[in-house]
């Protein structure tokens, strides 16, 4: 507080020191005389800047003795001291210069020289026009160290983003912090209650994004304090540029189909099914041969009672539930203004149908942003955007009305149609009975699973240049999201029939705001202004208010037209509750720059959070960092091969509160049950008044380099992230009486430790650069090693059935029975009973669950992008790769069941390889009616290698020559075709499911991931 008042007095003292300004115009060209657009023109040592327009022209107001700094990507930065001959003519020389690049950092921007942290910057054009609904999906492969995985092919679905490994033991607490236009803790992820998967980020049109900065190490993130431990993603939306009004229009259409399948592991057809069923009956001793087996199969009294003509139907259920989905998007934007006022406005429409029936996502959005320079001292910015989207997402997993579940669970001898071609349900022969998988065509047609998201986002920023080096900035940024879900199970057939139809409405309204006030001050320590300190002091308040309303009812009219609760005969539930959290913070930051050679930075933030009990509300977070721009040293000037060499190092401690229940600290009774018509209460949380943040201490060492005039440049980073005080739901003895409550089964405590260590390399090369042809190649690779180092009393934490988080092991090391294969002598299943994989047994009941040494976390991932440009033609291809992990096929034990699930349930072609006679060496046990010694108990048998390479994106574009376009008054026109996920190579030949899964590697019969082919046109006027 004292620091603050000091600054304030300074402000008051200096308030009168203004001088007269003048307007300067100029034009920036390259060495060949072509105009350079979007070059940055800045007054040295100040914060004022302008950008050149399409014709290279700029206008800027400067004080006396001002020096202009002109910079642009791919050009060497120039300083202009002589400003006498207006308009200025400035010629930039080729060559990339690190000093020129401005990077979005926490609470502002920095010249890249001053950056001591690990930051990946992604320009908006890289994520434009992708056939995905949300920005997070487009990020995959674009930044080293950032793992983006989609777990579901439903359009508008959520993703798992993990920066530099897994920072927390709780899956809800591993996502990075999103900061969109200054709103700390912007809404992200799936905020729905009933919907299979949704994504709050899908409210934002990726085409409205100007840039993204991914902050990875402590130096970059520490200013976000208690929320920064998992990294930070800063999104800046577009704002206008001065100059003639530009109109951009882009349209795209395309289609989506299933990206991955494997003949070795897909549902069997009816004849194959018959083979399995006969085998199972003969092997179980119910029949001596096929003839007896066939008789038994159709015998209703002593046998299975299947329809006598059952082998005459053969349905490929995957074909039934999948289709080619249509895809289209239209985006229109306007941008323009003068030196005083600039604006940007946009409108967009996005519509995508998934690969599977009853899945789609539609969005309408619009935005407007205005910047107004009220005076030389005062600038206002404001932006508001809104979107309305609707998603339809049927249930996933093993739900009876999940179309993907149906595709696997339903046997091939069922048909979705009656003989007359109508849809089959209430079948007298017992197909699709209640209480088993339904005819997916009927449920898709009559049920509704919608999620409508309405989003408004806005910010107001005032910037006040108090004196040339002192600036005050106030930013209020807010968003409102309404997540309105409605599901309807029809009363005629399916899940809803026993209720006479069931409707459930969930409405969540979230209002989320951040108000930040900050002072930036530059102290020049020399008159040459090449030794200075940049200071930041700020306060911030953040609040999130949730309001939740749920209602349900049943007994609907026996029609499928009256589907809303207005027509429910029996209302069954009404529920509403508000929740809230608040955060209050003070923070500051200092960067010392000496001649651009040495940069030191330090930051500190103090956060108070409503989530914790009184004594633990406040905590401090900090970082220190330094960089040495070796190529700025005198002795380096003579080595022309190296154009950039910068060494960075940083260390700091940040915190994590994401995914915390707002009220975990309290010992509570829940009042959510009733008995005999009266409300009941029950102890539901043991509480812990000592709860505090999770803490991460991270060291980062990085090297940035550029060679041969930046024909090759890149970065290498090594990091060590030590997570401490990790929250663990410490299992209580169930006898304590809390374990039944799946939400609060133990006591939440700060007791765990874990590390993530790894490296990231990104390289960009331009092997060929000629007048007409360029080839640019980008490669990045990330490697991460994760190890849990401390748990409470060394006790492992069971997690999501397949994991048992244990000390000394990777957090996502699978924990299950170890499969030892099939006994060649008799076809029995075998499991290992010891850790050394020596002793085996065929009795699954005594097989212990063990750590398997196989993890869900990839050892390496990254991408390889090549772009070729010849005149107006460009071809770009991005391969994404992922190696070293395993994936668990959750429901496969039902479909590779060795007879346990026969008949009635679909089986996989795997089963055809089953053991037949002594001496057979195979991986599938003998098939026995009723099952073969529970051979299908979950085990490593259902674990597959997750290695894959995917052609994530391939785009062929053609820009029409300007000479032709100018006649039509069009400034640019580009046509392109794009393929997404066109090819996938998986190394495990038996893998039947798409290898692209969520961070925990569990395949749960999700909607098939799409491959898309799209074509588009972009026109600029």
């Amino acid at each position: 507080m004292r620091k603050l008042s000091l600054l304030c007095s300074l402000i008051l003292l200096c308030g009168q020191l203004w001088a007269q300004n003048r307007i300067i115009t100029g034009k920036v060209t390259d060495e060949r005389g072509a105009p350079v657009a979007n070059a940055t023109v800045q007054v040295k040592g100040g914060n004022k800047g302008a950008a050149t327009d399409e014709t290279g022209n700029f206008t800027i107001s400067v004080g006396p003795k001002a020096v202009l700094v002109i910079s642009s990507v791919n050009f060497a930065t120039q300083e202009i001291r002589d400003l006498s001959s207006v308009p200025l003519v400035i010629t930039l020389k080729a060559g990339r210069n690190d000093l020129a690049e401005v990077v979005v950092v926490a609470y502002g921007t920095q010249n890249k020289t001053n950056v001591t942290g690990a930051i990946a910057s992604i320009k908006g054009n890289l994520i434009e026009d992708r056939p995905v609904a949300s920005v997070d999906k487009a990020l995959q492969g674009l930044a080293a160290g950032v793992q983006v995985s989609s777990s579901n092919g439903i359009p508008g679905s959520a993703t798992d983003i993990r920066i530099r490994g897994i920072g927390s033991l709780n899956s809800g607490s591993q996502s990075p912090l999103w900061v969109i236009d200054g709103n700390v803790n912007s809404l992200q992820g799936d905020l729905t209650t009933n919907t299979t998967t949704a994504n709050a980020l899908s409210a934002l049109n990726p085409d409205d994004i100007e840039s993204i900065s991914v902050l990875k190490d402590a130096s970059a993130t520490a200013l976000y304090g208690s929320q920064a431990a998992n990294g930070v993603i800063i999104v800046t939306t577009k704002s206008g540029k001065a100059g003639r009004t530009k109109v951009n229009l882009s349209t795209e259409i395309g289609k989506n189909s299933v990206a991955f399948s494997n003949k070795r592991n897909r549902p069997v057809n009816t004849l194959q099914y018959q083979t399995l069923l006969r085998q199972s009956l003969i092997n179980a001793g119910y029949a001596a041969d096929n003839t007896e087996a066939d008789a038994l199969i159709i015998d209703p009294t002593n046998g299975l009672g299947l329809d006598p003509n059952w082998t005459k139907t053969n349905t490929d259920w995957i074909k039934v539930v999948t289709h080619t989905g249509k895809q289209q998007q239209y985006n229109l934007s306007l941008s323009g203004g003068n030196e005083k006022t600039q604006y940007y406005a946009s409108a967009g429409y996005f519509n995508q149908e998934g690969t599977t029936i009853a899945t789609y996502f539609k969005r309408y959005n619009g935005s407007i942003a205005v910047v107004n320079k009220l005076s030389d001292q005062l600038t206002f910015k404001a932006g508001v955007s809104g979107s309305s989207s609707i998603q339809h997402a049927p249930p996933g997993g093993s739900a009876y009305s999940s179309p993907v579940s149906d595709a696997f669970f339903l046997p091939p001898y069922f048909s979705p149609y009656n003989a007359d071609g109508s849809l089959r349900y209430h079948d007298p022969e017992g197909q699709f009975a209640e209480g088993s998988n339904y005819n997916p065509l009927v449920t898709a047609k009559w049920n509704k699973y919608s999620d409508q998201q309405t989003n408004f986002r806005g910010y107001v920023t005032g910037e006040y240049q108090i004196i040339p080096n002192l600036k005050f900035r106030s930013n209020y940024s807010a968003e409102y999201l309404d997540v309105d879900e409605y599901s309807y199970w029809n009363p005629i057939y399916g899940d809803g029939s026993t209720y006479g139809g069931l409707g459930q409405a969930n409405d969540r309204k979230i209002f989320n705001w951040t108000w930040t006030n900050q002072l930036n001050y530059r102290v020049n320590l020399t008159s040459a202004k090449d030794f200075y300190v940049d200071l930041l002091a700020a306060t911030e308040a953040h609040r999130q208010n949730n309001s939740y309303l749920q209602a349900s009812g049943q007994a609907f009219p026996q029609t499928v037209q009256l589907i809303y609760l207005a027509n429910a005969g029996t209302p069954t539930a009404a529920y509403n509750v508000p929740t809230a959290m608040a955060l209050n913070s003070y923070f500051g930051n200092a960067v010392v720059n000496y001649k651009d050679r040495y940069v030191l930075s330090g930051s500190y933030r103090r956060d108070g959070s409503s989530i914790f009990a009184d004594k633990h509300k406040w905590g401090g977070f900090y970082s220190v960092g330094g960089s040495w721009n070796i190529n700025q040293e005198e002795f380096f000037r003579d080595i022309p091969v190296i154009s950039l060499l910068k060494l960075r190092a940083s260390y700091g401690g940040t915190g994590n509160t994401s995914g915390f229940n707002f009220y975990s600290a309290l010992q509570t009774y829940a009042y959510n049950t009733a008995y005999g018509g009266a409300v009941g209460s029950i102890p539901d949380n043991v509480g812990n008044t000592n709860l505090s943040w999770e803490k991460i201490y991270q060291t980062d060492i990085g090297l940035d380099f550029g060679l041969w005039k930046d024909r090759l440049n890149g970065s290498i980073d090594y990091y060590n992230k030590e997570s401490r005080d990790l929250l663990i739901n410490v299992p209580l003895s169930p006898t304590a009486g809390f374990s039944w409550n799946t939400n609060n089964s133990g006591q939440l405590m700060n007791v765990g430790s874990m590390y993530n260590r790894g490296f990231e390399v990104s390289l960009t090369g331009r092997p060929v650069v000629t007048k007409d042809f360029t080839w640019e190649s980008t490669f990045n690779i990330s490697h991460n090693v994760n190890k849990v180092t401390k748990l409470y009393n060394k006790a492992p934490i069971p997690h999501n059935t397949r994991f048992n988080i244990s000390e000394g092991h990777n957090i996502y090391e699978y924990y299950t029975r170890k499969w030892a294969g099939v006994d060649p002598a008799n076809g029995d299943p075998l499991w290992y009973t010891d850790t050394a994989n020596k002793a085996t047994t065929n009795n699954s009941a005594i097989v212990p669950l063990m750590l398997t040494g196989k993890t869900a976390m990839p050892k390496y991932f990254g991408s390889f992008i090549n772009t070729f440009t010849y005149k107006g033609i460009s071809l770009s291809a991005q391969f994404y790769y992922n190696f070293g992990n395993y994936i668990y096929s959750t429901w496969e034990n039902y479909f590779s069941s060795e007879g346990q699930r026969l008949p009635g349930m679909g089986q996989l072609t795997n089963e055809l390889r089953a053991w037949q006679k002594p001496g057979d060496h195979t991986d599938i046990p003998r098939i026995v009616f009723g099952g073969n010694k529970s051979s299908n108990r979950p085990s490593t048998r259902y674990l597959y290698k997750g290695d894959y390479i995917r052609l994530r994106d391939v785009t062929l574009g053609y820009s029409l020559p300007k000479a032709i376009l100018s006649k039509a008054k069009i400034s640019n026109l580009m046509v392109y075709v794009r393929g997404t996920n066109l090819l996938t190579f998986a190394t495990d030949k038996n893998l039947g499911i798409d290898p692209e899964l969520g961070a925990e590697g569990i395949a749960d019969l999700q909607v098939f991931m799409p491959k898309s082919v799209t074509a588009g046109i972009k026109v600029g006027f």
Partner: protein
Amino acid sequence: MKNIVNKTFLTLSIAAMMLTSCSKNFLVQDPHDKLPASQALNDVPAMQTALNGAYAQLRTTSLYGRDFPILGDLQADNIFIEVNNSGRYLTQFQYQVAASDATPDGGWKYAYGAILAANQIIDAKVTGNGVDAVKSQAYAIRALTYFKLVNIYARPYTDNPAGLGVPLILHYDPTLLPTRETTQKVYDQIVSDLKTAFQTAPAYTSSITLSKYSIEALLARTYFYMGDYANAKTAALDVINNSGFTLVNSAGAYKAFWENPAAQSDKSEVLFEIDVTSTNNNGPDDLGGFYYQGYQDVYASKQLVDLYSATDIRAAVLIPGLTKSGATTTLVGKYTNGASTSDRDNLKVIRLAEMYLIAAESSLPGNEADARTYLNDLMAFRDPSFGGYASTGAQLLLDIVTERRKELAFEGDRLYDLNRLKWDIDRGTQNAGSIPPKVQIITYADYRRISPIGQSEIQANANIKSQQNPGYN
């Protein structure tokens, strides 16, 4: 002018810096749908609300909602699972249960949740009108829960009272890592709790709350399972003679009784049942959903069905039909409102008929005349045209046990009855349409006659880990 503008903004800037760092209350947020534990049990209405919560806990699928009633019949010889099933209880039916399976874990967790809810009520320092009645029911809920626990997870009392029972938790202490008490101590606690409950028990108002005679009936059952036949008989007879409850004697009334989903106050048949309604239920996972509608995975075994005479009114709830995959079988009609849009089947915990059977069996071996009298008293209601049993000796015991099987079928009694008697389970011929039972005869000595203690207790509590039931790991 410019000066004024600038000064205004300067002032605003400073004010803004201060404002964002204000108010203490900004950081205080409490939940709106829960109460701190310290405020949850501070007066009689709050105690009643907590009691409702404890009753509701018994309704969950892991307890009376489904596991308790299903397992008692499925692991014995009364019901079977058909081939086209939802995958539930397969390992129980086929005797392949592992400690890592969900069912043993669930029952244990939810039962101790009910015990915690009861303990908190019993220990609450609240005085006033009505406290005693609330506490009485809490004692009875605790006793009932321990009775189920000790029968599912421990060898029967009649086997060895000094054997391992279950941990006895009587007071709130979440950090405790208890060991298993002896079966003797667990039963002593159950008897003590029921006696305490009996003393201040509320009078009967409806079938869905515990009252004086339902508590005494539970006490009779407890003594009976302990082999304390004198006390069992006394308690059972007190209920028969003094409770004012009656039995029905026609097939129509019997069927109507089972098909009625509502709470009763007519003192007919049921002493205590757990309330399930159209809004407070387990959705498709209700008991009726498993027997009759929805999953409909289980059916009555032929061996059981063949025991009922043509004139037995209890056969009214045995419905001839087909399995989902088409085999001829008998559906269970005790829970027909399983997925109903209106009220749903309440879960029967203890009925008057059992008191006759307890009185009869408790009279053996010393007083066969009494035994026949109580048995035939029941038969007069259940099969009015049947002349009555005249058997003696071992045959009389078998007749009583068989009538018990027929009376309490599909209510989760049979396995524990056979355990108590130390008899083998013999399922006979495989039922048509059934999944293959891996075992047809399960001898009394078989370790699988009791459940393993679930994975989460074994993992969280090293003291219990070394006390896992033999044969399981």
